[in-house]
């Protein structure tokens, strides 16, 4: 139990870090996934292999990278290779255990939208687009997603499927011939959602300390299912908070 105060964002980041097992080969998106992966590598997962789409394999950044092509990623990597190779030989070939993604919008089957809010040809908000996410979501063994929970972000159905989660649910991924298991955890500032074993609909399985189920429901744009045995996330330890804050301060 922590002696230190912490924010909901810090809880989210630490919960995401915990989701990364030691020895895991992880394709890391920039931003929150990268922060979480680097905390994990400094805590319980020293042998996690971090891969960035800029071509860095086994990156060991000494501070948080400011971008996907930060020099701190290449400088201490096991190998730096061309971008076509990272996507073809490493991601596409199914060599990556876990894809670690952020999202602008997510729906109840964990499909991700980072392209456009509103119609594609007459956008309300134009977002950056796909980047590496569609093939990370398709080809990694499993996918962890992390983003803040709100009704704006958690919608019944995304306006644009940038990266396929569980599609229309059930065995949709398998029917499409996708190899990876797809999203297995969505970690937010309020709790953790996991796809139901059968329907693949995102279900609240854990809430962070001090958060109520009602709060999570209110921040979700669909009628949220809650697991029968709802867990409460362990609060951040002092060690976790210290490592996270040192890492952020150094960056």
């Amino acid at each position, binding site marked *: 139990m922590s002696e230190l105060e912490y924010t909901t964002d810090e809880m989210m980041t630490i919960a995401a870090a915990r989701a990364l097992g030691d020895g895991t080969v992880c394709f890391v998106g*920039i*931003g929150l996934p990268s922060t979480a992966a680097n905390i994990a590598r400094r805590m319980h997962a020293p042998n996690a292999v971090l891969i960035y*789409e*800029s*071509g*860095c394999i086994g990156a060991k950044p000494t501070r948080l990278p*400011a*971008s*996907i*092509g*930060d*020099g701190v*990623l*290449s*400088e201490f990597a096991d*190998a*730096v*290779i*061309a*971008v*076509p190779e*990272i*996507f*073809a030989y490493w*991601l*596409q070939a199914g060599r990556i255990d876990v894809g670690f993604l952020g999202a602008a919008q997510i729906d109840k089957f964990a499909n991700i939208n980072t*392209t456009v809010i509103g119609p*594609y*040809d007459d*956008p309300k908000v*134009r*977002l*950056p*687009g*796909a*980047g*590496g*996410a*569609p*093939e990370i979501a*398709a*080809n990694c063994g499993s996918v962890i997603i992390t983003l803040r929970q709100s009704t704006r972000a958690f919608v019944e159905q995304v306006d*644009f*499927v*940038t*990266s*396929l989660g569980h*599609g229309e649910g059930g065995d*949709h*991924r398998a029917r*499409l*011939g*996708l*190899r990876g298991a797809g999203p297995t955890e969505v970690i937010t500032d309020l709790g953790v959602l996991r796809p139901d074993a059968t329907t693949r609909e995102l279900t609240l399985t854990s809430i962070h300390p001090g958060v109520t189920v009602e709060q999570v429901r209110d921040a979700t744009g669909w009628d949220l299912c809650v697991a029968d045995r709802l867990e409460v996330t362990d609060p951040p330890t002092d060690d976790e908070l210290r490592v996270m804050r040192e890492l952020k301060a150094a960056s």
Partner: protein
Amino acid sequence: MADFLDLPEAIERYVHDGQFVALEGFTHLIPFAAGHEIIRQGRTGLTVARMTPDLVYDQLIGAGCVSKLIFSWGGNPGVGSLHRMRDAIQEGWPGPIEIEEHSHAGMAERWRAGAAGLPFGVLRGYVGTSLPEHTETIVPITCPFTGEQLTAVPALNPDVGIIHAQQADRDGNVMMWGITGVQKECVLASTRAIVTVEEVVDTFEPHVNGVVLPAWVVDAVCVVPGGAHPSYADGYSERDNPYYAAWDEIGRDRDRFGEWVEEVCS
């Protein structure tokens, strides 16, 4: 065979209105100086391609150089949106631009196919996403051996490819290292290639991940120290993160952007 040219001369000689041009770079080694020279020379009607159109493409778009953008991720990395790009797409300012949108894996494969002299590339990609509904250059292809369905994308073959590298030798051979993205592919896929470099050296030192492009696949080498600024050149400069942060405000406002263009052009 590479000629050593001034950057303005190289852009004047090789980049013309209405062409297909690519300035590649992946956070590292982005050819900003070349992009600014294109703005200075007032090129228009360009089709531009890049995996990660960032500030330099935002600037080209805002300055009215671009009529079509082929890309896979358009943002200000670590900061937010590209407001000039958004303004062009959403409001048609300063003119409408057409977009052709892919994923990184698809764009990387398109560059590979372009460099390899193939008309198309193949990947496991886009399945189940909305991208194929909006992008005509994403089509299914069947493996003739297994019957499996995959995705085909057309090669990228710009008229002119522009990159920034650390060094050239006196013969015009080019060397870059660190994160080199798709720059080799961009040069090899393009009819003409312009490379800006930090400096000219007598001989190249060995570098882990060093990539050498021989002089005979490069048309112009331009010595432009700091030519990647605000991006960085491993071994020469650090990324100017405050510039990226400050761009958010400049890019957000048409007038402030206009002032920026005037400054660049003066």
